[in-house]
């Protein structure tokens, strides 16, 4: 059966390791939105790109004693969210150090295109 088009939601993840308490929320919100049939794209930008580093995702916790960030990233991916990371000119990442959940490294122009096209854009 054909499904009606989903609402598309773009979540700009700008929080990073300097504010651990804010790092899990974007992924949890993405999970909930995807569970409500929204088409969700998480876009790591600014300090948020650090969250794509495996050592950060495995160790960073938004709450003391809570699950590491990777748990929330995996939940969002399992629910169907897409995970993109901003390509930052002059900043080199070894692909081997990045989390496997990352779908794509994307340009600022592609981000601008999504902002224009998506029904909702959140910055978290």
């Amino acid at each position, binding site marked *: 059966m054909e*499904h009606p088009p989903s609402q598309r939601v773009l979540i700009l993840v700008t929080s990073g390791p300097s504010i651990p308490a804010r790092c899990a929320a974007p992924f949890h919100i993405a999970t*909930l939105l995807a*569970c409500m049939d929204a088409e969700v794209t998480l876009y790591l930008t600014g300090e948020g790109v650090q969250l794509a580093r495996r050592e950060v995702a495995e160790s960073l916790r938004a709450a003391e004693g809570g699950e590491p960030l990777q748990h929330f990233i995996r939940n969002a991916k399992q*629910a169907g969210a897409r995970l993109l990371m901003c390509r930052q000119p002059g900043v080199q990442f070894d692909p081997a150090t990045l989390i496997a959940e990352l779908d794509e490294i994307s340009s600022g122009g592609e981000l601008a295109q999504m902002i224009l096209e998506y029904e909702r854009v959140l910055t978290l």
Partner: protein
Amino acid sequence: MNVHGLEFPDSLRYAPEHSLWLREEADGSLTVGLTAYGCALYGQIFAFTPKRVGARIERERSFGVVEFAKAASSARSPVSGELQAVNEALLKRPALINQDCYGEGWMVRLQPENWAAVRDEFPLGETAAAAIAERMRLDNFDPANAHVQALQWK
């Protein structure tokens, strides 16, 4: 009936793939809730957020989201229809799903489309028990270790 220690009332129809039960109401609507097996998989449920009353739900699309200890999951509708009512008691007391999944913990009421054509896809009685047992087998569900599995699920 009882499947691997979990109760499934004989009077209900079941959607084993969705871990949901369906009760046909006199007005043609369907009351829908999570089965005891669904409760065992999720563990303690912290929140159930349904879509708005009046929403049209396509088959296999979400009628709400269930939040539990480790994650969240879509509650996917086994039939197409209109969301006619939601159990507002769950907004304040989502634990009712765990405590009384076949009674006060019902989730939503749907007005199904073309119910007569799909009704037989949702078994009753022994046919339902066999389908639920098969679902458990495919999930590698270990009834002796249900609580631990609920924590590890997803």
